[in-house]
């Protein structure tokens, strides 16, 4: 028996004035999977997610989230949803413990607030006001408030922006545990590494459309995944794209013995991603550069 997808979107459109933010986007999120949505700033990620969350109205297209239309769904639907927005600085004067316990009251079948506090690793901060938390702790609090209602589907919007590597690792563990509990997760991120580590599937969005999707290891298709063998011969550097790098290296070894300056390169997800958005957008490199700067802040 197959269960209905958690999210189904077809031919979604949304324009702001003349600018088409979302332009015929199709998307399916299966129950129990972690789907990462990647794309440059302005690609339509946030608009799409906010339509799914019920914050924005679409111009056209079909949207089903947990079987309902977010534009008209009510409280019962919201109680099955967890939303972790991009970084905010609200709730400053309340403590971690107060907030998690308070938000738990909103839901018909909430998780135990103390268990949630333990799960996100904020036990030691339970009496700390949220304004005094570090960036990583603050994000953990956001997640705690997003999952305390025992949601079936969680939206995570750029959850680890500004994290140090260690904080990011332990945040990933937290998300992986959520998935193990059967929670469906839709994640938007700028970090390819994050998508690669967490996601069952990746969707790349550019100019309001899905330009590629698949498991992180398959994204971009066979050609984009070909290995690159580089070496330097007497007449200068050579390179060869191939599905069988071992055979190529073997051949080279027979020719040269020790192959001069031999390199076998596998494209990273980042290479594939940049190629994908570069293919559909002339200034994608610039966008990617902008994102990198923003992430660095």
């Amino acid at each position, binding site marked *: 028996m197959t269960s209905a997808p958690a999210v189904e979107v077809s031919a979604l459109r949304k324009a702001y004035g003349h600018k088409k933010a979302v332009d015929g986007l199709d998307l399916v999120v299966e129950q129990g999977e972690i789907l990462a949505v990647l794309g440059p700033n302005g690609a339509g990620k946030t608009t799409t997610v906010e339509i799914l969350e019920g914050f924005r109205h679409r111009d056209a297209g079909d949207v089903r989230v947990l079987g309902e239309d977010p534009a008209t769904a009510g*409280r019962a639907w919201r109680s099955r949803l967890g939303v972790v927005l991009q970084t905010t600085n609200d709730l*400053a004067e309340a403590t971690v413990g107060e907030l998690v316990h308070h938000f738990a009251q909103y839901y*018909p079948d909430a998780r135990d607030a103390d268990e949630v506090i333990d799960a996100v690793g904020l036990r030691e901060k339970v009496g700390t006001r949220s304004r005094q938390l570090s960036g990583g702790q603050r994000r953990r609090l956001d997640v705690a408030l997003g999952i305390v209602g025992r949601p079936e589907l969680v939206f995570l919007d750029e959850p680890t922006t500004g994290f140090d590597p260690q904080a990011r690792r332990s945040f990933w563990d937290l998300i992986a545990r959520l998935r193990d509990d*059967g929670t469906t997760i839709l994640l938007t991120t700028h970090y390819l590494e994050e998508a690669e580590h967490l996601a069952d599937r990746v969707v790349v969005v550019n100019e309001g459309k899905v330009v590629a999707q698949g498991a992180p290891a398959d994204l971009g298709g066979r050609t984009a995944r070909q290995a690159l063998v580089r070496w330097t011969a007497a007449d200068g550097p050579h390179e060869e794209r191939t599905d069988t790098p071992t055979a190529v290296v073997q051949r080279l070894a027979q020719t040269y013995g020790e192959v001069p300056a031999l390199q076998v390169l596998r494209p990273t997800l980042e290479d594939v991603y940049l190629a994908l958005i570069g293919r559909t957008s002339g200034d994608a490199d610039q966008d990617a550069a902008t994102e990198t700067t923003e992430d660095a802040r």
Partner: protein
Amino acid sequence: MSTTTPAQQRVSATGPLPGTLRLGLARTRYEVRGFFRERDAVIFIFAYPVIMLAIFATVFGQDGNSIDFGDSSVPFAQYFLPGMIATGVMLSSFQNLAIAIAVERDEGGLKRLRATPLPAASYFVGKIGQVLVSCVLQVTILLLVAALAFDVPMPDSSAAWATFAWVLLLGTATGAVCGVAFSSVPRSGRSASAVVTPIVLVLQFISGVFFQFDQLPSWMQQVASVFPLKWMAQGMRSVFLPDEAAALEVSGTWQHGAIAAVLLAWLVVGLVLGARWFRWRRRDDG
């Protein structure tokens, strides 16, 4: 790569959604606690009317000066107390909510709540509850200071206290509702107090909070008569001043009917505008 595990199908027979009123009370507790932790705002809202009462009663009341009408007179402290109560109510309700909600919206707090199953009504019950708690506390402090430090006599008739109660409650409700509506006016949380405070100040000056209302220019009296503060102050004067002091009013009477009518009208205006203008998201957030 992990395979997509079929979601462990939760026995998804979730219980009933928590009641709107129950959540409203939970919000009230949360809001009151949050309000008292914003120490700067609390001190300003609570201390301002008390300090103003002390200054005005002391400055104008030097050498035993008092406000005369007909054959009798009242000390300045007694004359100014009603205006300070009205001001306190406006600070606790209108100014407090107009700024707090604008900031909450700007910081993303409202959007966060919108993503939960919390009913909008519960959110507003929480705000109104917090305003009521701080209004009652504020007025209590003012009355205590007035009675103990300035020997202002408290009313001794139950009719006066009944007037006190309805003017206080209606004024608080009107101020709160208008504050919710006005919270959509400032463009950002940071500009909120810069937009709201001058309006509150001007209203205080033209509504007879700091001056004897009947001595203001008549055009100013007419402008003030459009807004609720003047009427709230007049209602409170009818409680704390002797009946003969009605002679000091522009119309020569306390005009309880007009007070109720103007406050109710603003209550309705605030409700309508609040419902039309209220947004959970920032203006620049689509």
